């Protein structure tokens, strides 16, 4: 490949040698004219070699010194230039406690509904049973246990819903749930999805910490954008690392995720349908110039590779000229949204650290409404199943939202209040709009925006939690040792997962555990599935199988055949839906006084509700057809796990 690379690699030393030769023969050293005389003076043949080599050395040193001086001179000039152009003073964040309440928000929403669809009756409010499951899944990412359901329903206090929301907002599961959401948002579009290099798990841990402390959103985003250091020391570094610290990739993704503006199309040409120009994209990318990712530790057996991200030096960002791809046009950083456009042009010579800090300040500043709107819109979409805009990552000044008065007011209040995420979630969840029942498109409330809540599929980690709860699985999805009688279908001795000794072996060997769980075929993004399995075990493979990009509209999220196969025929589901002593069903059947009670207990465990009359009728009819009580209940258990409702939020 060297030959193909051209002769550039030996250019530099050749140039040095040439320069020295020239210097010696012509005696022309630009900075030191006096020294040129010496080589001519001493020409005694006996001393020629020694003298000549000394001269060569001296000339080289002088040449190096001269070059260094010139560079320094340049830098000094550049600094002076930069000092002349004052950096725009970015205002500090001010916090005004928001005056918007849930009731006020409701009023705005109802106003909108009356204006656009006066004839449509919004859906009724959820019952307590429906509410408790919804809130637990939305906040903590896991369904409530039967005890939690019963205690909530039986609670007679008036403000129990608000108190439940508050309690869940304090729980560690809330932080983990939302950290996983944002990690998925970033991961599915990351340039480098290699789990071993980018350490998305560390990113999730770091985000969990931030959400647990209720850090303001602008601080979290600023920390991610300006992150530097080793990825194993600072989880936020995974964000620039996920995009290989490349300015064009970072620009596109930062804009999409945090501003909701899809400007990446303007990388190669002026945007075809929006007004963004190619220059604007590159001016934005210039903020990320100078950030570099480099490997610190190589991957070795027992050790993951470690990368480091740093912002160094005084970079010059250039974009290729459209007319002549070999020419590069230097570009100064400039923010392309909102009031920043009125600012004076920034110098091209900003250093990398200043650039990132300034970029983060423009993005998260309170003079940029799109930062707040993008976040509020996403949270609203996750909680209501409906968004103000057509897509959660396609907002911007050129898109028209539904109910602009609602989104703009809410986003504005949230922004002025200092980007308090807990306040936002609490306010939305306190509204009647959030607490309405779900409706399908078969009812008029289902087709009208904000007249009802919309059901959507759970995220992969939420489905894991639901399975863990419903089947009493260990959190890492490895086998559960169950004492006593092994029974498999048709009287065959049951396999692997029932033997305590085997389950220990599985816990030690993640690859075998993954295979035993029926997850070996899950698609992993990293090359080297083996390493990925060792990193995360069955739970990671489950997330790979069921994982979906949260930015995709809910209606477009359809299941896949491997997912259906796993739930239908997978070893975990099969084993744990059997009625053996030690399993959930075994216990229910042993303790329930009669069939109806057992059915109620089963529904409560799996779907957090009681069966309605029709469901009871269906089960009775099934029972009389099949006869064998154990088989009937196993089939019902299986059907509930495989139902749509089990993997949906409603």
């Amino acid at each position, binding site marked *: *490949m060297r030959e193909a690379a051209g002769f550039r690699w030996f250019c530099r030393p050749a140039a040095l040698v040439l320069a020295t030769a020239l210097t010696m023969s012509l005696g022309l050293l630009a900075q030191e004219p006096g020294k040129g005389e010496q080589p001519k003076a001493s020409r005694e043949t006996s001393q020629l070699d020694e003298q000549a080599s000394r001269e060569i050395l001296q000339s080289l040193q002088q040449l190096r010194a001269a070059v260094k001086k010139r560079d320094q001179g340049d830098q000094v000039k550049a600094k002076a230039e930069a000092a002349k152009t004052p950096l725009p003073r970015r205002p500090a964040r001010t916090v005004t406690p928001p005056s918007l309440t849930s009731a006020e928000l409701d009023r705005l929403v109802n106003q909108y509904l009356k204006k656009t669809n006066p004839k449509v009756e919004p*859906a009724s409010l959820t019952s307590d049973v429906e509410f408790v499951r919804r809130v637990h899944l939305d906040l903590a990412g896991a369904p409530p246990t039967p005890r939690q359901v019963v205690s909530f329903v039986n609670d007679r206090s008036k403000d129990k819903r608000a108190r439940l929301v508050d309690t869940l907002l304090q729980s560690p599961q809330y932080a983990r749930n939302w950290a996983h959401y944002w990690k998925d948002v970033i991961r599915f579009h*990351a340039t480098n999805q290699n789990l071993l290099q980018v350490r998305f798990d560390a990113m999730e841990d770091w985000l969990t910490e931030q959400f647990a402390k209720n850090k303001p959103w602008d601080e979290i985003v600023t920390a991610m954008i300006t992150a530097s250091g080793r990825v194993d020391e600072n989880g936020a570094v995974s964000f620039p690392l996920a*995009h290989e610290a490349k300015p064009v990739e970072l620009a*596109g993704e930062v804009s999409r995720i945090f501003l909701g503006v899809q400007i*990446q*199309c303007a990388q*190669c040409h002026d945007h*075809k*349908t929006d007004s963004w120009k190619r220059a604007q994209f590159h001016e934005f990318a210039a903020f990320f110039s100078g950030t570099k990712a480099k490997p610190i530790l190589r991957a070795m057996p027992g050790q993951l590779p470690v990368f480091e991200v740093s912002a160094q030096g005084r970079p010059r960002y250039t974009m*290729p000229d*459209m*007319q002549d*791809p070999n020419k590069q046009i230097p570009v100064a950083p400039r923010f392309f949204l909102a009031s920043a456009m009125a600012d004076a042009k920034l110098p091209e010579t900003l250093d990398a650290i200043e650039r990132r800090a300034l970029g983060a300040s423009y993005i998260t500043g309170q003079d940029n409404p799109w930062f707040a709107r993008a976040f509020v819109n996403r949270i609203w979409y996750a909680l209501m199943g409906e968004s103000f805009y057509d897509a959660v990552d396609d907002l911007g000044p050129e898109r028209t939202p539904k109910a602009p008065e609602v989104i703009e007011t809410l986003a504005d209040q949230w922004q002025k209040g200092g980007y308090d995420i807990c306040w936002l979630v609490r306010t939305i969840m306190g509204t009647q709009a959030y607490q309405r*029942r*779900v409706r*399908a498109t078969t*009812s008029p409330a289902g087709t009208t925006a904000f007249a*009802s809540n919309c*059901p959507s*599929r759970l995220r992969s980690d939420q489905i894991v939690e639901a399975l863990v709860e419903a089947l009493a699985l260990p959190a890492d999805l490895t086998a559960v040792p169950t004492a006593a009688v092994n029974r498999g279908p048709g009287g065959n001795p049951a396999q692997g997962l029932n033997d305590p000794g085997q389950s220990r072996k599985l816990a030690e060997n993640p690859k075998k555990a993954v295979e035993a769980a*029926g*997850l*070996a*075929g899950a*698609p*992993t993004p990293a*090359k080297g*599935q083996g390493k990925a399995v060792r990193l995360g075990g069955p739970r990671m493979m489950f997330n790979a199988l069921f994982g979906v990009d949260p930015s*995709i509209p809910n*209606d*477009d*999220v*359809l*299941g*896949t*055949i*491997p997912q*259906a*196969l796993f739930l*239908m*025929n*997978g*070893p975990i589901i099969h084993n744990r839906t059997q009625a053996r002593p030690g399993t959930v069903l075994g216990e229910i059947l042993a303790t329930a006084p009669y069939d109806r009670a057992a059915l109620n207990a089963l529904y409560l465990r799996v779907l957090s509700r009681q069966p*309605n009359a*029709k*469901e009871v*009728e*269906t089960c009775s009819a*099934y029972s009389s057809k099949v006869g064998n009580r154990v088989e009937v209940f196993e*089939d*019902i258990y*299986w*059907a509930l796990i*495989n*139902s*749509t*409702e089990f993997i*949906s939020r*409603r």
Partner: protein
Amino acid sequence: MPIESKIVQVGMSGDGVVSRRGFLRTLGLGAAGLTGMGVMPVSFTELMVLQADELRKRQMACILLWMAGGPSQFETFDPKPGTEHGGSTKAIETSVPGISIAQGWDQTARVMKEITLVRSMTNKEGNHQRATYQLHTGYIPTATVKHPNIGCSIAAELGESKFDLPHIVSIGGPTIGAGFLGAALEPFVVQNVERPPDNTQPKVAADRFKRRLGLLNHLETAGFGQTGGFDRVKDHRALYAQTARMVLSPRMRAFHLDEESPGTREAYGRNPFGQGCLLARRLVEAGVTFVEVRSNGWDTHQQNNDKVATLAQQVDPAFASLIRDLKEHGMLGRTLVVWMGEFGRTPKINGNAGRDHYPKVFNVALAGGGIKGGQVIGASNAAGTEAGACGPRPGSSVSGPCHRSRRCPRSARPDHSRSVRALSMPFSVGRGQGWPYPAGVEPGVRQGHSPALRLTPRPGESPSPLNPAEPSAFGPCAEEEPAEIAPLGWATWPSWISRTRSSGVMKRRS
């Protein structure tokens, strides 16, 4: 216009999401340079869409043998014995006089009559993941769009919607996914060929399984289907119906390799790759449209010759048996077999007796699908450093699918009509000297032209300079007009139109 609606259809993902990029992409490079011609450049996907009915009728299928890591062309199908870069690898004669391949590929040599070697593949990407993406999708990876595996595109067009089995299967490991075509077309992964795929066998008796499904349906109708989940339940039910159809389908027997005779299994080789090829044949027989079989370990930075020799012991009998088997079953005419890696390896042998990545010139072997076998297309230069001697057309691509053979309306010369009956993937064959970027073109995702490659001489024609057995028989290409397609009677276009990058695979012209 029906053609336009088909093209627009391709731009929509399975979820109904129209991506602007997808739409524009299928329209090709549009109006640039086409003034007055009234001709639209077409891409592989478009060609396939246009010919989908024809292909479906013929039950065309494709088997991709993916040599992960980048197989060395010197030790596979483009040996250079006795040269500076050839190493110690000897060349062996094949059943086609004039074509020789590396030692260790004896069985493949015997079926060379069915194989077309393309020796002038060239690209710029030397990174594994990116090159794999490029060769699988035809596009350069970018954060903005997830392109679908070509197999998924093919499956989307040719697969019957009610078919029992998945339309695209990946054996030996996961592969590039369906991208914007949606989760419904994700490749079905088979990790271990010795037993049926995970979770496809019901853990209870078939009767009880069907009974349970019935119960599930009833409970859903009575429950969530009534309380606001109607749309969700409908989608879920459709998915479960499809999955159950697969689980209960007698076609799943295709995964039971023990139904084959031991002799056949031995012939393919008792190793994962060999048995994977056997499974691929059975799946295509059962009606699957696209199967990829993966062979790992070709990234031979160290001990190149030894490692390739070991791998060839597995891949050679499997490849040859697959071709022979397909022929015996009468399936070779409708099944295209592609043997390919993501790039080639360096002519210079490194300090560890290995070869490093070298996308500048590599080779690909094609068989079946109507391609005329026993020929070599393109060549590398004598040193093996460049895609040297004249290929069929600088900048041309082997493209897709089935065009009816059409006479060029403008020229009376018979060798201008092209017929491509192969269902193949777009990649570039050529001199290794590509085209400069036309003014105004930025590096980025681009739709390429894919004029057809003449692969089968029309009956009664003398072999044209483009259809020789030996590279040296290539006549001077420069004077000839570029390979053109004339799908469905459209006019052909002049040479300067093909001066753009082909889909994802680039060459630079001096």
